[in-house]
């Protein structure tokens, strides 16, 4: 593994540790789990017993160390709500979120990439104006509102697609489009401006001058070089998709990790909140490591300079 990837991995691990620590501190601020777990009217003795059982009577630094040590082994404790290991509960919901975020990312890269490239190639035409306008609107539309509007139009008025739920591809369409909206618009705009920047560079002029056709110039010179900022941004957007999925999943009743965490925050199910946020952060870090790896494949200059 190249040296700079090793150091990136170290930084990623520190980031995950930081996230886990913040979640631990904040969930201790949320209240006493023992009071929440026992029925109202439980005696002080019962409360004490449960606190001892959960390790809540220990001093906070010791609780934190125990928590970290257990988390390292993948043990985030039992979910208060489900009575099963919190990590299992999170892992069960992971495929749904992965499917939704994956579909949204695919839409974003395909549609956004196509639209952005077309806008750059047909510069100054109606195509560019339409792409820019739609992208501007797409970036300004809050996902939860878009989701409800799509439900109103395609599910309630036209009856083509279900209003929510999970299982078939019809269930996936509306949430994926909703979640993809911002990503698609961002990729389209960034790719367009990145391509226009590259098209002004000297080596593109050289390529034309030595007699290459537009198709070759675009594939080999413009395409590859204009992808670099887009890849960075896509990595960041992929992370935001996972977090942003919380709202979209809530609108569509999609059984993913985002909605699980939102519900766990409401019911103060700390183990699930901690496990869920830790997993989401870990995925984010992994995605960004992958992006770093992709860079070195796309752009040999980065490989050499580090």
């Amino acid at each position, binding site marked *: 593994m190249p040296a700079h990837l090793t150091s990136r991995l170290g930084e990623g691990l520190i980031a995950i540790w930081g996230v886990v620590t*913040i979640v631990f501190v*904040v969930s201790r601020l949320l209240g006493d789990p023992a009071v929440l777990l026992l029925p109202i009217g439980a005696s002080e003795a019962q409360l004490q017993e449960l606190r001892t059982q959960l390790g809540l009577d220990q001093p906070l630094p010791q609780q934190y160390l125990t928590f970290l040590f257990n988390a390292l082994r993948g043990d985030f404790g039992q979910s208060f709500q489900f009575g099963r290991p919190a990590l299992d509960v999170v892992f069960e919901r992971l495929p749904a979120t992965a499917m939704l975020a994956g579909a949204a990312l695919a839409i974003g890269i395909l549609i956004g990439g196509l639209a952005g490239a077309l806008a750059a190639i047909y510069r100054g035409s109606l195509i560019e104006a339409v792409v820019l306008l739609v992208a501007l609107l797409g970036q300004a539309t809050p996902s939860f509102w878009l989701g409800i509007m799509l*439900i109103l139009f395609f599910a309630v008025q036209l009856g083509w697609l279900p209003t929510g739920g999970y299982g078939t591809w019809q269930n996936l369409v509306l949430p994926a489009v909703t979640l993809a909206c911002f990503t698609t618009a961002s990729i389209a705009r960034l790719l367009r401006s990145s391509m226009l920047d590259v098209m002004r560079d000297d080596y593109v002029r050289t390529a034309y001058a030595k007699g290459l056709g537009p198709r070759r110039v675009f594939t080999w010179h413009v395409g590859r070089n204009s992808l670099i900022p887009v890849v960075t941004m896509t990595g960041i957007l992929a992370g935001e998709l996972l977090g942003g999925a919380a709202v979209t999943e809530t609108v569509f009743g999609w059984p993913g990790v985002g909605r699980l965490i939102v519900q766990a925050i409401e019911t103060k199910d700390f183990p699930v909140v901690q496990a869920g946020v830790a997993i989401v952060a870990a995925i984010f870090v992994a995605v960004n490591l992958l992006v770093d790896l992709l860079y070195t494949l796309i752009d040999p200059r980065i490989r050499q300079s580090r």
Partner: protein
Amino acid sequence: MSLLSILRHQRANWLGLLGGTLLVLLLVLAVAGPWLGLPDPTRGDLRARMLAPTISWTGLGSHPLGTDQLGRDILSRIIAGSRVTLTIAGSAVVLGGIVGVLLGLIAGYFGGWWDRILMRLVDIQLAFPLMLLALLVVAALGPSLHNLIAVLALTSWVRYARIIRGQVLTVREREFVQAVKAMGAGPVRILIRHVLPNVLTPALVVATLELARTIVLEAGLSFLGLGIQPPSPSWGRMLADGRTYIASAWWIITLPGLALMLTVLSVNLLGDWLRDWLDPRSERS
């Protein structure tokens, strides 16, 4: 740059101008809201529940944008909501900006451990999905006005800190900074008098882009029930309420959403224009 050339450029970029105009209009409406003679946004009239919008070519009618499920006037609620939204988002962006710029200055100028610690903090924050971070903190502290502003500021300082740090790294090597240093000026004086003015414009660009993001995040929190609490009207809460009546009264949910979209759009347009104007290399769109 002379005023004339700025104006000329502004005319060339009518989108930026449109965004600025819309935003000013919105601010005026938000500030003047209570004196416009509209119905009380928090008082319902159950005899006038879910009235459809009456706005038309012939006139405004008594409830131009209709009423909601409790018979409250939607137009006045949207305007009252804009006050709440703009207050929260604006304060959060300013607060986050001050913290972020300050930390970015320190990290960029002093480097070393300050820089390393700050960059790791930035990594941690970026690995934390903003919505989840905001939800968690609001759930812990309670959804009061001050807490909301603090939480939203917490989610936005990172971007300032990163941009400012990068800017400071180049500015601190410039001759005028070295000259002042040689003359014996202390770090505080150098940072405030000589570095800060040179990094304020990028901070302004970040601020506009952050304002748009914060407005959406605030609406999202309200939508999930963790925003500003009733009876204060908020756009996110109006959307959440309207969801129930989506099949029978489309306007309850559609109109506040449109207001939200228009606001974000105008802030984005202004931000894009600012960025293009300040960065001659970037493509003007």
